[in-house]
C-alpha cells in the first residue's frame, strides 16, 4: 500500500482508521505492560488470563443479553481476575506448583467458556451470533467508541505504570528487598496483575482470546534482544507491539480475506524472529559474525607463529616456505590460504617468490610478541 493510499484510507475509510487505531493502542499497551510479566517470569500468566476471560465473556452475555464490547470486556476482566486469584490460592494452599496451576486454570476456564458458548449458540432466538469472534478476534467489528474505550483504559494503565514505575521495578527485580524497605509488595503485585488484565481484555476484540498472549510476551522478548536498560526495554516493547499492530492492520486491509488479529500476531512473529537474528550483541547473526572474526584472528596468529617457528628452525628468516608446509602445521585449523592473504594485506608476511612465504620485519615483531604472550599465559 503506497503512502498516498494509506493517508487516503486513514482519512476517508472509517473501518480502516478504527482498526488501525485499535491495533496501535493494543500494541503499545500490551507490549509495555507485558514487559513486566516477562521480566517476572510470568509470561504464561498472560496466556492463562486471556483464556480464562472466555467464560467471562459468555456469562456476561448470558446475564445481560448485551453484546456491547464494554459489557463483555468487563466480564472478561472479572473472569481473568478470578482466574488469577484461583491460581494464587492453588499455589498458596496446595503443593501444586505455579506452572501446573497456570495450566489448570487456563484449560478449565477455557473449557468452561466453550461449554457456555455452545449452550448460548443452541439457545433459540438468542442474538448470540458473534460471541465466538472473541476466540480469534474480529477487528472489523470495532467501532470508534470501542477504540475510545480501549484508548482510555490503555492510557489509564500506562499512567499508573508510570506513576508506580520505581515501585514496580523494585517489585520485579527484588520483591523481598522491597518488602524490607516497607513497600506493600502484595498490593503492588495485585496492581500489576490488574494492569495486565486490563492490557489483555482491551485486546480481545481485535486479536481474540487464543492469540492474545503473544501480544503480551513477544514484544518484550524481542525488545530484550536490543537493549540492556529496563526503561528502554519497556518502551521498546510498546513500540514493537505498536509496529506489529499497525503493520498487521495495514496488511490485512490490503490483502483480501486476511483476518486482522492473526495477521498482527504474524507480523509480531516476524519482529521477534528478526530481533533474534539481527540484534547487536545478543542476535544470532551478530554472535556468529563475532565468532567468525575471532576464529580468523586465531588462524592468522597460528600462521604467524608457525612461520616464526620455521624461521627459528632454519635460523634464516629469508628461507621461504610453501603453503603446503603451513597447511601441514595447521592441521585442524584450516583457513591457511585466507590467512596468508590477510596477513599479506597487513604487511606481516611477504610472498618473496611463487608459493614462498616469509615473515616481514613487522611480521617478525608481531610473532615475537605473540610468542612472549603465550609464554606468560602458560
Amino acid at each position, binding site marked *: 500500500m503506497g503512502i498516498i493510499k494509506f493517508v487516503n484510507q486513514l482519512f476517508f475509510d472509517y473501518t480502516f482508521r478504527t482498526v488501525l487505531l485499535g491495533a496501535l493502542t493494543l500494541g503499545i499497551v500490551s507490549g509495555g505492560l507485558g514487559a513486566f510479566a516477562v521480566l517476572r517470569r510470568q509470561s504464561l500468566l498472560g496466556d492463562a488470563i486471556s483464556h480464562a476471560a472466555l467464560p467471562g465473556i459468555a456469562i456476561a452475555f448470558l446475564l445481560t443479553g448485551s453484546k456491547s464490547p464494554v459489557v463483555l470486556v468487563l466480564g472478561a476482566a472479572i473472569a481473568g481476575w478470578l482466574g488469577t486469584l484461583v491460581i494464587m490460592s492453588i499455589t498458596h494452599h496446595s503443593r501444586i506448583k505455579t506452572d501446573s496451576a497456570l495450566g489448570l486454570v487456563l484449560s478449565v476456564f477455557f473449557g468452561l467458556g466453550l461449554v457456555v458458548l455452545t449452550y448460548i449458540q443452541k439457545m433459540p432466538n438468542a442474538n448470540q451470533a458473534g460471541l465466538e469472534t472473541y476466540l480469534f478476534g474480529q477487528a472489523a467489528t470495532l467501532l470508534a467508541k470501542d477504540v475510545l474505550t480501549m484508548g482510555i483504559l490503555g492510557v489509564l494503565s500506562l499512567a499508573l505504570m508510570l506513576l508506580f514505575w*520505581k515501585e514496580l521495578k523494585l517489585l520485579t527485580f*527484588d520483591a523481598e528487598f522491597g518488602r524490607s*524497605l516497607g513497600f506493600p509488595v502484595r498490593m503492588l503485585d495485585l496492581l500489576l496483575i490488574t494492569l495486565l488484565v486490563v492490557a489483555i481484555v482491551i485486546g480481545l476484540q481485535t486479536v481474540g482470546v487464543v492469540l492474545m498472549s503473544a501480544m503480551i510476551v513477544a514484544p518484550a522478548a524481542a525488545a530484550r534482544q536490543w537493549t540492556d536498560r*529496563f526503561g528502554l526495554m519497556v518502551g521498546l516493547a510498546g513500540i514493537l507491539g505498536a509496529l506489529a499492530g499497525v503493520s498487521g492492520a495495514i496488511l490485512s486491509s490490503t490483502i483480501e480475506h486476511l483476518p486482522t488479529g492473526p495477521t498482527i500476531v504474524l507480523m509480531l512473529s516476524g519482529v521477534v524472529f528478526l530481533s533474534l537474528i539481527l540484534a547487536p550483541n545478543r542476535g544470532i547473526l551478530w554472535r556468529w559474525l563475532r565468532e567468525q572474526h575471532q576464529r580468523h584472528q586465531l588462524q592468522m596468529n597460528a600462521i604467524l607463529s608457525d612461520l616464526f617457528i620455521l624461521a627459528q628452525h632454519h635460523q634464516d628468516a629469508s628461507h621461504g616456505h610453501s603453503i603446503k608446509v603451513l597447511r601441514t602445521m595447521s592441521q585442524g585449523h584450516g583457513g591457511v590460504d585466507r590467512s596468508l592473504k590477510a596477513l599479506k594485506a597487513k604487511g606481516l608476511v611477504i610472498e618473496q617468490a611463487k608459493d614462498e612465504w616469509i615473515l616481514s620485519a613487522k611480521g617478525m615483531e608481531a610473532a615475537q610478541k605473540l610468542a612472549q604472550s603465550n609464554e606468560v599465559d602458560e
Partner: protein
Amino acid sequence: MQSKQNPSTPTITTTNDLAIKIEDLTVAYREKPVLWDVDLQVPTGVLMAIVGPNGAGKTTLIKAIMELVKPVAGFIEVFGKPFANQRSRVGYVPQRNSVDWDFPTNALDVVMMGRYGALGWFRRPGRKEQQIALAALNKVGMADFANRQISQLSGGQQQRVFLARALVQEADIYLMDEPFQGVDAITERAIVLILKELRAARKTVIVVHHDLQTVNEYYDWVTLLNVRCIASGPVQKVFTEHNLRQAYGGRVAFLGLHSHEEAA
C-alpha cells in the same frame, strides 16, 4: 538514648543497650518448626555471626527480624521498638541467589534501589541519590563498574553491589545473609574490612556466616543456631567445641576453638 558499649565486656541490663531482642520466637513452615523458642539478645555495636548447619533457620531468623516471615509465637524488638517503627534503621543484604541477575539494569541502578525506602512513594531517584550510590560503589571498590550490566559481574562483584545497596540505606543495624558464599578471597577481605569499619562506627552488624574457620578472625560475637538457639555471646566465651557439637551434632574437627581441644 543508647549508652556506649565496649563490645568485649557487655552487660545487658536495659533494653537500650540492645540492638535486637528476641523472645520465644517460633517460626513454622507447614507445621514443621524452623525456629523454636528462640531467645536472643544482640547488644548494640557488635559484629555478630550466626552459624549453624543447613536448615538451622539462620535465614529465617534474619527474615523474622524484618517481619518478612510471620512467627507462630514470640516477639522481636529493634532498639526497644517493633521493627515496623524502626524500618529505616535496618539495612539488608539478601542472599545473592535471591534475584535474577539477568535483569536489564546496571550496578548503579541496583545500588540506588537502596534509597527507595527514603524516597517513599512515587518520587524518582535523582542527582542526590545518584551521588550517594556512587559513593557507596566507590566504598566497595566498584566505582568503575557503575554502568556495567549486572549480568556481566562476577559473583564477588555482585555481592559488593548488594553490600553497597545496603550501605546507602544508612542504617544502624545491618543484616546480611551469607555474604561470603561463593566469593573470591579479595572480595571477602574487602567486605570484612567494611564490616569492621561499620562496627567501629558503632553500627550493629549481624551476618549469617557459613565458614566456621573464619568466625574467630572476623567476629566478636556469635550465635549458634539449630532451630533452637544453642548459645549466643562473645566469640571467646561461646565458640567452644562443646557448643559446636551441640549445634552441629557429631564430629566437628577444625582449628580455632577456644577450649583448645580437638574434637575426638
